[in-house]
């Protein structure tokens, strides 16, 4: 902070020194009239920009607007050297005389945040700097101030002059002016776009700055056009002199706007704090924040640490906007934990920087309360959805059961009955045929019994209730078509609902592995950790399992949700699949 202050004072000193030098150069100029007026106007503009710029820079070092204003002032002082009667100083001043124009446009585009937002903006500003430095340089190799076109008898010599070539100079100036016009158009397009995007509150503080900036741009364009049109030098001088008055006021408009924004903002924080003193009703907090930030599109979303996701006030899932979508996210912490996020217009963030953080911090307690409410709502919503899914899963399971019974065991028993009837009819005339039919019937009976056993196990694994998780999983592992390694399984009995959930996680995972994974082996690992039962089933198959594609994993997640468990699926194509269930288990 100290070093910044020192640097600012040094810059202020340099501004005074260069200003005095300009003053001397202008008063000593051999080619202008009204030297006193020129000197006064020139210094007023330069010192206004430098003084106000350095002041703003010192007050808000994080905002580059002050720095840019000071830069504009110094560029203006350099242009002032163009009044000198000394050939070297005169040439330098004329050569760099247009840089301040680039600085003004930079300032205008960077206001009020101090930074250029988009790539087109950066390109326009870079184009201006290139045009006003490298672009104008060739001109001064051929421009002779004494030649007919410029017609400045009192001017000193151009020290860079290679050869006097007035028609080439005219052509080059026209090209440069056209390029300048393109860039100015770019600036205007950006400003118009911003204006249309701005909220009413933002517009209020953009008005003075934009109108002053556009007026200055316009004036400069008029001057260039008039000069090109061949207006007499004395008339041009008069316009220049007149133009310096509003130009000198520009930095104060900028400053006034910066101060006013801060005042508006501190007023809004006070109002916000006062409102939050009472208990805000639902939606009021959002409205208060939207008003404080001047962004009616502001959204509040709340962090659910258990589910590790954001939800809106109604408890619905909310995906944070991606960078570059035009929306910015400011996270709000309360006692070190993330409680919420303010989703707002990116423009607000650019222009008001850390202010959104301050507003968020002021509202963090209230946000924490609303977060708890949103969490509750989300849980209710989740339970409702889960209950609905459980219901439809139950119905679906019954339908599947009926279908399996009908198409499986029942059909086999029907065939068996028909075969036995046939066998009875043939028993006397064709004992061998009857024997074949009875063999067939016995085969159907065995198959029907097998299918019934399979069905019963799917409804409830009796072995699990009788012998516990370890034995039931051994049975599952033995029946799986790929080798299954039971890495660890708790030996002790757990509550039935938890054992059943863990069993179904493994059963469903192994079914999926057998069906889709093309795996060579699988590992089952069940551990107790921090009051949770972690059920992990890993395979080395093709991966790419989609939890939303089949009803199996979805149904599993719902079964788990009932006992507050969660399912995580890590499955990338070619990298195998890991299914992890976390089940609360004190």
């Amino acid at each position, binding site marked *: 902070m100290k070093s910044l202050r020192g640097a600012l004072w040094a810059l202020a000193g340099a501004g005074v020194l260069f200003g005095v030098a300009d003053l001397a150069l202008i008063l000593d100029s051999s080619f202008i009239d009204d030297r006193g007026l020129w000197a006064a106007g020139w210094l007023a503009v330069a010192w206004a920009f430098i003084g106000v710029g350095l002041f703003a820079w010192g007050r808000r070092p994080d905002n580059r607007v002050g720095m840019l204003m000071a830069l504009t002032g110094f560029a203006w002082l350099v242009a002032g050297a163009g009044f000198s009667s000394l050939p070297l100083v005169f040439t330098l001043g004329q050569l760099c005389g247009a840089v301040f124009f680039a600085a003004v446009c930079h300032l205008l585009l960077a206001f009020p945040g101090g930074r250029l937002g988009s790539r087109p903006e950066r390109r326009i500003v870079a184009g201006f700097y290139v045009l006003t430095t490298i672009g104008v340089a060739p001109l001064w190799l051929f421009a002779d101030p004494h030649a007919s076109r410029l017609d400045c008898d009192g001017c000193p010599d151009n020290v860079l002059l290679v050869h006097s070539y007035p028609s080439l100079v005219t052509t080059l100036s026209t090209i440069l002016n056209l390029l300048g016009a393109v860039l100015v158009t770019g600036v205007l397009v950006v400003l118009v776009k911003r204006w249309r995007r701005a909220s009413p509150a933002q517009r209020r503080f953009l008005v003075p700055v934009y109108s002053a900036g556009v007026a200055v741009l316009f004036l400069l364009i008029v001057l260039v056009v008039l000069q090109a049109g061949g207006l007499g030098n004395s008339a041009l001088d008069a316009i220049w002199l007149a133009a310096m008055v509003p130009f000198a006021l520009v930095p104060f408009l900028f400053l006034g706007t910066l101060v006013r924004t801060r005042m508006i903002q501190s007023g809004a924080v006070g109002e916000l704090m006062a409102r939050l003193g009472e208990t805000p009703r639902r939606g009021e907090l959002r409205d208060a924040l939207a008003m404080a930030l001047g962004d009616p599109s502001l959204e509040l979303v709340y962090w659910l640490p258990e589910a590790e996701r954001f939800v809106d006030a109604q408890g619905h899932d909310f995906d944070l906007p991606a960078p570059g979508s035009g929306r910015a996210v400011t996270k709000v912490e309360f006692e070190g934990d993330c409680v919420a996020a303010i989703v707002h217009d990116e423009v607000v963030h650019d222009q008001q920087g850390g202010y959104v953080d301050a507003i968020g911090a002021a509202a963090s307690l209230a946000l924490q309360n609303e977060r708890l409410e949103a969490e509750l709502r989300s849980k209710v919503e989740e339970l409702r959805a889960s209950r609905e899914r459980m219901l439809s899963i139950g119905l679906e399971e019954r339908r599947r059961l009926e279908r399996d019974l*009908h*198409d499986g065991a*029942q*059909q*086999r*028993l*029907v*065939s068996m*009955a*028909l*075969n036995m*009837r*046939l066998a009875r*009819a*043939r028993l006397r005339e064709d004992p061998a045929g009857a024997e074949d039919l009875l063999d067939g019937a016995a085969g*159907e009976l065995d198959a029907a019994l097998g299918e019934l056993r399979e069905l019963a196990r799917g409804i409830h694994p009796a072995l699990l209730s009788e012998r516990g998780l370890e034995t039931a999983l051994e049975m599952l592992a033995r029946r799986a078509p790929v080798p299954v390694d039971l890495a660890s399984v708790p030996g002790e009995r757990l509550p039935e609902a938890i054992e059943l959930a863990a069993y179904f996680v493994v059963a469903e995972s192994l079914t999926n592995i057998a069906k889709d994974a093309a795996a060579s082996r699988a590992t089952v690992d069940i551990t107790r950790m921090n009051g949770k039962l972690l059920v992990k089933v890993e395979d080395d198959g093709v991966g790419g399992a989609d939890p939303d594609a089949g009803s199996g994993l979805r149904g599993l997640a719902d079964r788990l949700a009932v006992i507050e468990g969660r399912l995580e699926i890590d499955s990338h194509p070619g990298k195998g699949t890991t299914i992890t269930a976390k089940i609360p288990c004190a």
Partner: protein
Amino acid sequence: MALTVLIVDDHPSFRASARMLLECEGYEVIGEAEDGLAALDAVARLHPDVVLLDVQLPDIDGFEVAARLTENGTSPAIVLTSSRDVDDLGFLAGRDGVRGFIPKSELSGSAIEALL
């Protein structure tokens, strides 16, 4: 002359058993169909005397098949069959040209004959 039969059922094992059983009792099985639309097509082509029609079919169900056959006017004798109980479906016999209902496990030539 033997009565001609079309067997309509989506389970091949039942169709095979029913064919053996009915042929054993002197019926002539002139065709099989595995769903409702195939059944309508087969009736139009083969003109069977009797259609042994399963209630549960993969596309349109047996009642619908019966209704469409009756609409066509040239309806053969329709005998519904199902692995479900006669108590569940027996009351539906008599509608849409349906002569009667035989549970699959009780199927026999004489059971069909009793309904004709």
